[in-house]
């Protein structure tokens, strides 16, 4: 029997790593490149507002030049969009600029907590799915919204663990549990994962993948932290595939009192 974790398939593409990584907040593009490599990720999301979409290779907006498209699937994200129109426009521009027809749909009109707008996200998802995009929507951990999005054909759902960049972990645990239980597409826990233990927790719960950015980018050693997340995600996934033991309220002695009856 193989000891490797099962690969993850999204829209027909197979990923051996279940760790997705964001590219914001790093102290340099070189550091970002090295941390991506250390994390073993195969899917990397990039904010389109940071990239040059004109095709002119702008040296002052050259983040994409540090991400090898042969090695990673570049997942453009629509961060900065405040409504469906803007997100759809950004996604189309990304394709026109030669990026994959995949989009991490992020619509957060409130710049303080960056919480996703469910109404606009649903509207944009409908349009983009119809246009043939592989849509990965970032959503609050709302099981009904997750189902509605699955019904219209999104490729994954990406519920948040806690607000972006907050490092607070899986505060939406109970809701994420329901989303996973009811899911017909992969569930990627996105946002708020501040420690490898949070990532492992999400994977043990049965999430198909996690997306990490801040905790790696602002660490004093992003590469080592990338490796730490890699191991945590693998450990959490392995535990899920093996199946964790049941939890009990009381101790379960290894030398039971009734052993003499056997």
């Amino acid at each position, binding site marked *: 029997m193989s000891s490797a974790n099962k690969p993850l398939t999204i829209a027909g593409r197979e990923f051996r790593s279940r760790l997705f990584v964001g590219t914001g907040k*790093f102290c340099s593009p070189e550091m970002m490149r090295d941390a991506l490599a250390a994390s073993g990720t195969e899917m990397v999301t990039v904010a389109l*507002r940071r990239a040059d979409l004109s095709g002119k290779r*702008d040296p002052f907006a050259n983040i994409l030049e540090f991400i090898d498209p042969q090695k990673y699937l570049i997942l453009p994200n629509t961060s900065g969009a405040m409504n469906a129109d803007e997100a759809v*426009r*950004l996604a189309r521009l990304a394709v026109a600029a030669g990026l994959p027809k995949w989009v991490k749909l992020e619509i957060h*009109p*409130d710049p303080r907590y960056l919480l996703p707008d469910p109404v606009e996200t649903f509207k944009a998802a409908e349009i983009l799915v119809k246009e043939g995009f592989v849509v990965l929507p970032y959503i609050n951990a709302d099981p009904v919204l997750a189902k509605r999005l699955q019904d219209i054909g999104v490729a994954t759902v990406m519920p948040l663990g806690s607000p972006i960049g907050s490092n607070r972990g899986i505060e939406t645990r109970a809701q994420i549990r329901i989303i996973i239980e009811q899911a017909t597409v992969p569930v990627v826990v996105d946002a708020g994962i501040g420690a490898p233990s949070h990532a492992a927790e999400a994977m043990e719960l049965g999430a198909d993948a996690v997306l990490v950015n801040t905790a790696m980018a602002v660490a004093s050693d992003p590469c080592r932290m990338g490796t730490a997340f890699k191991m945590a995600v693998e450990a959490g996934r392995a535990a899920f595939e093996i199946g964790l033991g049941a939890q009990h309220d009381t101790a379960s002695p290894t030398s039971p009192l009734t052993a003499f009856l056997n």
Partner: protein
Amino acid sequence: MSFVSDFNALPLGSLLKQSLSANSLQARAAMNKSDITLADFAQLISPAGSEHLEALCRRSQQLTQQRFGKVIRFFAPLYVSNECINNCSYCGFSRDNPILRVTLSIDDLQREARSLKEQGFRNILLVAGEHPKFVSNNYLADCTRALHEIVPSVSLEVGPMEVEEYRPIVEAGADGLVVYQETYDRPIYGEMHTAGPKRNFDWRLETPERAYTAGFRRLGIGALYGLADWRLEALSVAAHADYLLRNCWKAQVTISLPRLRPCAGEFQPLTHMTDRELVQLVCAFRLMFPDIGLVLSTRESAKLRDGMFPLGVTLISAGSHTEPGGYTGAGKEKIHQTVRGRIVEVGASEFATIGTAATNATGQFNIADDRSPEEIATIIRRLGYEPVWKDWDEALMTKAE
């Protein structure tokens, strides 16, 4: 909806008293709270709070890195006109100052913008004096459109307008509006603004709300430190920012902390804020508002800026000029003086006596950090941060085809 009624009800006097009489323990306790109220903020900026400056800086740095990452965004001011109908005692552009004036043509403006783009800037702040004859609303919309052809992000710092007057400018592609109240102290405001529409304190105070209604999504506010007690100004700015975050919830709010610089007219600051106090204030704003943008301009010296970059600042300018045409010499041939709204040609002999370099229009104030953007970017990298030039795409604002 208006901040004016909230502002009028603010217990500023008692907050200032609490701040001045705070003890070290109270200041420390405020620092360790997770949700900072205005009363806590008064403790953070207190003289006693200064004793904990090192710890305050560490907390501010940590919060900023968590929320914004290890990046610093760049912007450049582009002055398009130094014509003005106001008389503001502290401002070099005041209408009665006999300075060299010019309003750039659209071609001049694009020349300046291209020069800034070559240096890296993708985020331009268009600045103009307030003068309906030279700086009309249509002209500002045209400027915005012309700038937008060159850079993705355009903000404005211009005379306040009505909502309906702002809309064409937003449609032309502007995403941000900056308006400093200058001073939140009503009596001093009255003394400083002796003529022109800027005399109306309340109208100016409500400007960010009107801008938000018109569709601007970045709102910049601030006080000009050097006119009234800095703690009173800071408390007012904090209350204003808090109001905007609640009521203009889709906007990104930024706070600038300009200190008065020497300018034409030889105005001397009425109050003083030390470097140490400026650092304390930046960190106090960060603790109260973990998500707000904090701006540091070239008004401050190179040494101070280098020290402050990693402490909580998120948006900086570099290599700035405060005179129209300052980056390329554009518009030089049209330089004149303006007397009672009329253009007066300047003779060759007068050039030698009025201007300093006598070839460019007069700047609003002297800058203190004249290093190039490239030099500053190198320092930012050395400090362990990535200089970010582009953080916005025109697709976010431009109407679909």
